[in-house]
């Protein structure tokens, strides 16, 4: 009897975890394990593992120029997106941190990209960037085929993504700024600091804890961007926007090379995990309060 109660006590915590574990298992753990499994096989068109290929898929990738191009494109894309979206979020948050007439309008406007689906934003951008009728060419008086030129397509997609991601950054940074005590700015004013000195000595360090979190989230988000690329460029022209997530999609659902796609997924996972680990390591040293 006593033993039964004890056993019950030992297992009951796990029972409460079952619902979330089931969801994680179905949508995360199982696909993840299956991806690793598939990455070691050659598959048929149904995505079924047929021939054990070992690390063959990985070896093929590492020797493929297309894969390295993907990596390069992804890196450039991620840098532009992370820097752009964080700068945009930070600047708009700092601007809106002061009370002035119309502040609500501006706050809403800056946070709005959060509420826009990447696909609809992409379609609006497509119109704006249209070589013949697009407003961008009209305003700039240029005649550039933005999305079909390998020199500009990646930047266009990256800037759109940066803008899309800036909304949530605006929100994070606004919250972070709200946590900075106003009186330290007053003291700095009396101490003789200029606006720029205050920004670099107080605001940026004050935001550093949330800055770190935002950076990690943004990097992960940037690596996983897909919708806007699918709609605007489909990885082209000439693979100039073929970021790794799009390359995975293309290999799996166009070329039916599920093994190769799985291997790329695993590589993407490892990259993101390494970056996150390094960032956490740095955070422990960098944020001092």
């Amino acid at each position: 009897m006593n033993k039964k109660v004890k056993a019950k006590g030992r297992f009951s915590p796990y029972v409460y975890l079952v619902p979330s574990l089931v969801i994680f298992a179905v949508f995360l753990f199982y696909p993840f394990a299956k991806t690793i499994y598939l990455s070691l096989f050659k598959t048929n068109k149904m995505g079924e593992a047929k021939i054990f290929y070992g690390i063959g898929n990985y070896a093929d990738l590492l020797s493929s120029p297309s894969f390295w191009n993907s990596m390069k494109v992804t890196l450039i894309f991620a840098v532009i997106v992370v820097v752009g979206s964080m700068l945009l979020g930070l600047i708009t948050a700092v601007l809106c941190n002061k009370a002035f007439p119309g502040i609500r309008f501006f706050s809403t406007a800056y946070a709005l990209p959060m509420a826009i689906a990447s696909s609809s934003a992409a379609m609006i951008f497509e119109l704006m960037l249209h070589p013949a009728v697009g407003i961008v060419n009209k305003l700039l008086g240029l005649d550039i085929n933005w999305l079909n030129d390998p020199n500009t397509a990646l930047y266009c997609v990256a800037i759109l993504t940066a803008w899309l991601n800036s909304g949530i950054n605006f929100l994070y940074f606004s919250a972070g700024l709200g946590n900075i005590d106003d009186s330290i700015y007053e003291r700095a004013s009396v101490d003789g600091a200029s606006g720029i000195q205050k920004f670099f000595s107080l605001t940026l360090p004050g935001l550093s804890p949330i800055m770190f979190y935002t950076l990690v989230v943004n990097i992960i988000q940037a690596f996983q961007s897909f919708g806007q690329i699918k709609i605007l460029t489909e990885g082209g022209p000439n693979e100039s926007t073929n970021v790794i997530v799009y390359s995975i999609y293309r290999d799996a659902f166009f070329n039916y090379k599920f093994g190769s796609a799985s291997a790329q997924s695993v590589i993407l996972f490892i990259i993101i995990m390494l970056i996150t680990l390094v960032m956490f390591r740095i955070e422990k040293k960098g944020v001092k309060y």
Partner: protein
Amino acid sequence: MSEITLRNICKQYENEHFAVKDFNLDIHDREFVIFVGPSGCGKSTTLRMIAGLEDISDGELWIDGQLCNYFEPKDRGLSMVFQNYALYPNMTVYGNLAFALKIRKMSKTEIDKTVRGVAKTLEIEHLLERYPNALSGGQKQRVAIGSAIVRKPKAFLMDEPLSNLDAKLRAQMRIELAKIHKETETTIIYVTHDQTEAMTLGSKIVVMKDGLVQQVAAPAEVYNHPVNLFVAGFIGSPSMNFMKAWVAEEGGHAALYLGSMASDSKIILDGAKGQRLLEKEKGNEVIIGVRPEDIYEYEDAVKGGFDKNSINICKTVSTREVLGAEVVLYFEEQDKTQAVRLKPENMTRVGEDIDLYVDPDRIHVFDLSTEENIFYGKEQQA
């Protein structure tokens, strides 16, 4: 040298409400000026206007002969200590002390020398490498004061700097502030709602209420000669006792009848004070104010020679507080609790009656409608 002059300074908010109205004050070099008053009286607002953290709606602010209304805070040459210390959380104590100097592009060796000098004065040398979140309240306070004195400003502005400390630490820091004032020989403008701080630290006290200056004077002057009912009641602890009385003439002297004309408790005021009272208020009802230490037992009244002229208030003691060096008894009069401060030997217990005599020379009389002190009010000072 620093002379700060405020001329008709006003602070008005958008809803037309005046936070400060017509504030006039001359602050001389090396003065320790205290703004004191209840919450919301405009004392902090005035300080912040001097600092440049609030716009001045009307009036003129002169610092060392320069009109400073539109100067940025950094160009006014003042430094400020805030109530919540306002230490930079991302900088060490050293960084906090050095910040204002770095901005002024002082050389590193000079900064180091100055910072360490100030740290030594305030006994915070061992804390220099710590961050503010690892400091106690008292230590934060020292760092805040250190950050203010490190760059030798024209004047220090202090906004309730001791209010977040416990009573013992507050008393200790009060003494240190007085010492710092003496050593730095700088003007200090200090805001507090604590009248003990005001009385002990200030060389000049500015008592404020509802945005208006009530009285500007030395601490003893404010205590002994309050200009009106508010100042009389605000300064002093326990506060002054107030009772209503009627003024009548008796044998050429002024007589004050406590409560009503038929009262057998009365006080005779002779001499100039009596004449002044009769001139102004004969036949009127007035408010008399008596400090708890100006009420005596019979023997002391006889010794003081005022037992014949004084009110004899025979009262039942409602509360007794023994404070060591003195005992404070409370009794009810005119539906108000009144206090009397007596020698510790007094053994009257709660519920017992006690005969009390007021020293007539020490009473204050206030006009019932204007609440001005009839003897020391603004009219007399003018």
